[in-house]
């Protein structure tokens, strides 16, 4: 579909509007870039100097040496990959079952999933922590993996997607004698690439930017993640915002790369999650 475009004035105005909006959206990023190239005491200087007089490119080198940024980067990447993979696997399996299979307790469990989205994590954070501790999982990456790989949101998303796939396809496969597993792996999974791409982006962004989880469950320096690392720049009596901005920008890069790579699937993918009807 497309609106017919009034040529000339309408088009130009639209472009101006878009560019203006894009500038507004990107303004904070420009500020971050500019701040990352300043000396710490000048970051909050006023009036705002958008282009620093003497760009401190060395800030980008400092972030790797002041704190073990590479370790944090690697840890965050490791957690993101593992958790995303596990989520994709278990959520799509469960989502398919909730969408296309009849079984006792189906509605009950699905309701439990949905209801759980409504409860803020802060309220069950402590019982969860005590449980993990008793299992001996404190200060391990495994604790975060177990906590985040099995999410209600993932199941909800995949289920919405699978519902929109016509039943005839599945019936035909069953008639052909395909087992449920066969149907899942040979038919559903390939079809669900857009939804999987979508879930990948959401999960990855979440894990990458997660702060509270690592804060509570990780103690050892060698296990910490980027978000925790950023806090190390804020000390009791001072804070180095220039380095924080530099580190934040660097940590944005993998996410942006991921998004650009999956963008194609992404926009297609959301369309198929049951919102078309």
């Amino acid at each position, binding site marked *: 579909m497309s609106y017919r475009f009034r040529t000339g004035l309408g088009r130009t105005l639209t472009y101006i509007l878009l560019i203006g909006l894009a500038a507004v959206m990107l303004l904070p990023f420009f500020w971050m870039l500019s701040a990352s190239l300043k000396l710490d005491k000048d970051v909050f200087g006023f009036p705002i100097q958008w282009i620093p007089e003497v760009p401190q490119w060395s800030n980008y080198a400092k972030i790797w040496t002041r704190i073990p940024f590479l370790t944090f980067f690697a840890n965050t990447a490791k957690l993101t990959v593992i958790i995303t993979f596990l989520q994709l696997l278990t959520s799509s399996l469960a989502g398919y079952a909730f969408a296309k299979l009849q079984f006792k307790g189906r509605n009950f469990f699905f309701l439990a999933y949905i209801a759980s989205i409504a409860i803020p994590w802060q309220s069950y954070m402590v019982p969860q922590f005590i449980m993990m501790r008793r299992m001996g999982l404190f200060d391990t990456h495994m604790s975060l993996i177990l906590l985040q790989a099995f999410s209600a949101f993932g199941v909800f998303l995949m289920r919405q997607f699978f519902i929109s796939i016509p039943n005839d396809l599945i019936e035909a496969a069953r008639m052909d004698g395909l087992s449920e597993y066969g149907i899942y792996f040979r038919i559903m999974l390939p079809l669900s690439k857009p939804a999987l791409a979508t879930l990948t982006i959401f999960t990855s962004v979440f894990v990458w930017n997660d702060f509270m989880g690592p804060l509570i469950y990780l103690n050892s320096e060698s296990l910490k993640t980027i978000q925790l690392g950023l806090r190390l720049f804020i000390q009791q009596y001072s804070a180095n915002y220039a380095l924080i901005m530099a580190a934040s920008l660097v940590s944005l890069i993998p996410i942006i790369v991921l998004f650009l790579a999956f963008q194609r699937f992404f926009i297609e993918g959301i369309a198929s999650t049951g*919102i078309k009807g």
Partner: protein
Amino acid sequence: MNLPRQNTASARRRTIKDTLIAYSFILPNLLGFAIFTLVPMVFSLVLAFMNWDGANVVSWAGLGNFKQLLRDTTFRIALINTFYYVIGTVPLTMAAALGLALLLNQPLRGRNFFRTTFFFPYVASLVAVAVVWNMLFHPAVGPVNQLLMTLGIENPPRWTADVNWAMPTVILASIWKGMGYYMVIYLAALQGIPAYLYEAAEIDGANAWQKFRNVTLPMLTPATFFVSIMITIASFKVFDLILVMTGGGPGRATNVLVIHTYNTAFKEFRFGYSSAIAMVLFVIVLVITIVQFRMEKRWVSYM
């Protein structure tokens, strides 16, 4: 399954086997979810009827925590603020997302660039966003107020330093951060509207506005429904953004339910009371979600 059920032994066996197969699909996720999330959740809801300081023994409180909620002024303030936030954020974000999607659904040069740009804020880390936003809206030297002053406004609002403007500022930041995400959902939905509907409308002599009202909007209702549910729930649960931008202040101007939950648990060590607050939130969200689902039949049209 659409096969008719037959009352034969083989049919029953098939059903049991099917149930087992179905469970094998959901078990990996369900087991993990039940043990690591559901159990603590249920425990925390049960905690609402207890007193616990996080270290010593748990003791029964019955409805005591809830009775205290009625007397708690901070709870009242947090409740009002939460609704204020939701009412401010939900419609505006949805409108902005829809507007952007409409704008970016046209054949434009650099369309992908713009789409990616508007999605960026969602991806950025909150800590950085809060710092930057506070800087931009700095009461004295932020660009926003500098601009307002050059436009002739003598005393521009002091934003997060002002009890009346703090919440609007937070709402604005939230819209900025979230609209790209919901924009993408609308974009995908717009692409799903069959072209022939528009052609038919044009043949009937419809103008742009009529096309929008009679084709676009109705076809978007499933997407609108999905978005409205997700964003409503997320808005009731808002925490991180407010924590880093204002800490709940100035005073209690931006204190919302989840922040109050957090404070009572981690600053005052009243975990039972904190759970009671969380339970009230849970019930509110549940009721609203159920109402939304009930109303779905009335206004959402699936093709």
